[in-house]
């Protein structure tokens, strides 16, 4: 065992305390709850053996980079600059706790303050926290936050309208976070063209909040969303969930009236990592500040008048406010947010724009190529897309994905897993790294399958 510096010195340490054995240290554990048999687990391993097992087990996984991959559904098969993991795993960052002692934590505090600034700039809102767990918990806590802030003036008490096209796995998180605290979720209807039904949106006037996503679950951009705030009015919060990369070319929601913006931070900073750790973006207008969830860094001075950073507004948080806290969040995703900050800083404004243009380009080319296959149609033909688009197939999408898999293509996500009525729909996701040969492989494997089912 190479993790215990005092191994072999137990006796001398025990003796100095007047104790005889390790058992004496556990004499306070009553017999009736004491474990007497050893843990029925495998034997210990050396670092070398662990690495070999890890390489074997993780090696049998098929990674996204090993084949043409069109699976996105809210995550990005991004490229993370080499600098990012190398710097973020510096021990001073990696092995620190939440910076409760600002005098020896200025590094992380400043990096998070810079992160807040970059997120704030990205989404067009003045305040950002230092991360939520992921896009789904960010959306869920945006809703509970909006109800706290807008609840008093709302004429539809506790009511929040949520877009019909929020993916079910995200919706499920939202439901779990809102079910016990007097919030009623109602559906904000979309029209046959996939866009938010602006007529129906009138019903949301007087509700606490409206939650929509831009792009929606099918990767569709909706011009109507920029008119929503005008329709629902000042007393109803507009919460917009975004694809963070799209904001390199798509308007920042803060500029069309959004009160809170949330989204998945993952495309900046870390690979898809089987779904975590990733991080949720959370930014808002100033009137939400004192009732928002999560940690916030503020700039201040030290005793000598020198610039310094510190966590602030902690009175919202669980360790002070306990059951009256704005959230139970304690551990968040700071290190991943740090990686995000590094990635954003390296991209710069023009780099972000270019990244978004790259994704837009592969989305468009893939969309044109796939819809050129006879028998395949876009579910919403006249809607612009970013990163993803959904098509209707002449058969079950699970079968199509299975066939494409058999020829080495990860062809997308069968939407029947989200909505039963969409079992023939395939969600195809693109990213900045999608190549023309990837697209060729997708089109040829999908065409083969279509020919097979229509023959």
């Amino acid at each position: 065992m190479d993790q215990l510096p005092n191994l072999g010195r137990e006796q001398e340490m025990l003796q100095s305390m007047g104790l005889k054995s390790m058992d004496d240290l556990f004499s306070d554990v009553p017999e009736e709850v004491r474990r007497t048999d050893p843990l029925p687990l495998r034997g210990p391993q050396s670092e070398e053996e662990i690495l070999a097992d890890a390489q074997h087990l993780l090696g049998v996984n098929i990674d996204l980079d090993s084949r043409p991959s069109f699976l996105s559904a809210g995550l990005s098969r991004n490229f993370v600059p080499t600098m990012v993991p190398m710097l973020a795993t510096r021990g001073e960052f990696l092995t620190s706790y939440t910076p409760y002692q600002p005098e020896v934590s200025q590094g992380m505090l400043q990096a998070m303050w810079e992160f807040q600034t970059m997120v704030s700039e990205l989404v067009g809102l003045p305040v950002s926290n230092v991360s939520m767990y992921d896009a789904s918990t960010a959306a869920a806590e945006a809703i509970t936050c909006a109800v706290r802030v807008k609840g008093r003036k709302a004429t539809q008490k506790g009511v929040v309208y949520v877009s019909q096209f929020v993916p079910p796995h995200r919706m499920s998180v939202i439901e779990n976070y809102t079910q016990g605290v007097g919030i009623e979720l109602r559906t904000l209807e979309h029209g046959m063209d996939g866009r938010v039904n602006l007529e129906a949106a009138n019903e949301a006037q007087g509700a606490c909040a409206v939650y929509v996503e831009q792009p929606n679950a099918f990767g569709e951009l909706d011009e109507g969303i920029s008119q929503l705030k005008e329709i629902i009015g000042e007393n109803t919060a507009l919460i917009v969930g975004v694809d963070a990369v799209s904001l390199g070319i798509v308007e920042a929601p803060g500029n069309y009236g959004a009160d809170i913006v949330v989204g998945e931070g993952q495309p900046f900073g870390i690979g898809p990592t089987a779904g975590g750790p990733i991080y949720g973006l959370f930014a808002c207008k100033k009137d939400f500040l004192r009732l928002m969830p999560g940690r916030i860094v503020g700039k201040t001075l030290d005793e000598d008048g020198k610039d310094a950073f510190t966590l602030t507004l902690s009175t919202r948080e669980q360790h002070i406010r306990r059951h009256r806290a704005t959230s139970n969040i304690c551990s968040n995703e700071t290190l991943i947010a740090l990686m995000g900050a590094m990635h954003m800083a390296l991209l710069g404004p023009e780099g972000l724009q270019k990244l978004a243009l790259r994704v837009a380009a592969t989305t468009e080319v893939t969309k044109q190529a796939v819809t050129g296959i006879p028998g395949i149609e876009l579910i919403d033909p006249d809607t612009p897309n970013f990163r993803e688009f959904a098509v209707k197939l002449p058969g079950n999408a699970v079968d199509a994905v299975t066939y494409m898999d058999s020829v080495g293509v990860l062809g997308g996500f069968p939407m029947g897993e989200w909505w039963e009525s969409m079992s023939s729909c395939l969600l195809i996701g693109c990213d900045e790294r999608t190549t023309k040969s990837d697209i060729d492989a997708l089109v040829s494997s999908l065409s083969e399958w279509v020919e097979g089912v229509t023959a």
Partner: protein
Amino acid sequence: MSDIFQFNGAEGSGWSQPEPIIDDSLNTVPVSLRRSNLPRWPRASEPELVRHYTLLSQRNFGIDTGFYPLGSCTMKHNPRINERIVQLPGIDRIHPLQPEHQIQGLLSIYFEMQEMLEICAGMDQVTLQPVAGAQGEFTAIRCIQEYHRSNGDYQRDKVIVPDSAHGTNPASAAMCGYEIVEIPSGDDGRLDLDALRAAVGEDTAAMMITNPSTLGIFEPEIAKAAEIVHSAGGQMYYDGANFNAILGKTDPGRMGFDAVHYNLHKTFSQPHGGGGPGSGPIGVKEHLAGFLPSPIADREVAEDGGVTGDGYRYFWRTPDSTIGKVQQWHGNAGAVVRSWAYYRRYGKELELMSEHAVLNANYLRHQIMNANSDKRDAIHCMPVDGAPAEVVKHEFTLSMQPLKETTGVTGKDVAKRLLDYGYMSPTLYFPMIVPECLMIEPTETESREVLDKFAEDFLTILSEDPELVQTAPHDTDVRRVDEVLAARSLVLRKEFD
């Protein structure tokens, strides 16, 4: 040092990337939706940024730079093999929605971790989905809530927590809509069974408690407490923040708990990363298993021996009455894999880890409280044990109240002075039931020499000129930071001219 926005080079992005595969992709965005102004991010080159972040890191204290006796947080060494493994494409480049046959290795690691955690806690089923301890609490309370509802027990609207509980406990229960009933600790800091008896009833949904308690002492009457709560029809929830103290010695199952969360970032060495990511799996007894979030890793015998070669085919299973999801995917898989690597280091010897954690805590407590007479004579005032006990578990509390009364030096002053000596401060003013509390958890990964030196320096501080201590820190990067000013005049981002 100046901030990152000082970098504003003329050449645009500091990072090269390939050109878009078509030129006019901006046309895919409707004109009315196009971004008007780009975010004012820095324009920097790689060398500038590498230096910027390296300099920032040098202004940050981590376990790697010094002793980190932060109670309740288990700041143990983070083995570097963990970081190497999570860079492998078989985890970094995996999508959670990939078909099961493409991620058999990941599923097998999930299964192994679920099983190991079940064994260590005496629970029947574990889910790895919650991504932080607080989210684990929330998830478990949600399961308990659905369990009661499935029994028609809608009147159970209260959750009991001791006044020494972590703040997340009441906050998590409140997020599920529960009313919180706080019960006072006894004079010895232990759970007061009479107070518990008075608090339970037909409206009790659950009790949330950690054992060892936040005072670092084992609750000897925990099984009786469980009996009291159960006989009222409530469920027992174990806050696993202090799990590092008891592995292989006892487990929440034996103590009578129905549900438990684990902090992989405490007990199983997932790095804390300046505040996260964490991972907060939960384990439950059979009667709650059907309510767990979806999905859970499971396996069946594979005719062909399976892809991993262990004879099984792994798959995701949805529990029958699942509450759905608490995180969008399968939790913090990267943290699970790191913790798996850590577990493999110990295997069945995990008990050794807890023994050494407890040994170190008791040793350090002894070195501080039983200082030799020379040292003692010089000290203004000795601290008082937060809870009188023969032995503590993995942490202990000291009250600096006497020092404050005689010299005016507060617990916070001592904590800040420790920074000058190159230590991280212990947890300050928690639990709130101990006045001027310092909560100290050395963990098993500190050597005897470090503990001896810390005890000596700690006692030296208690003998220092009170003014020197009250004005500490003196030798840190910045002096005492004005938190009141920070909250009063909020500067939460860079303002550009």
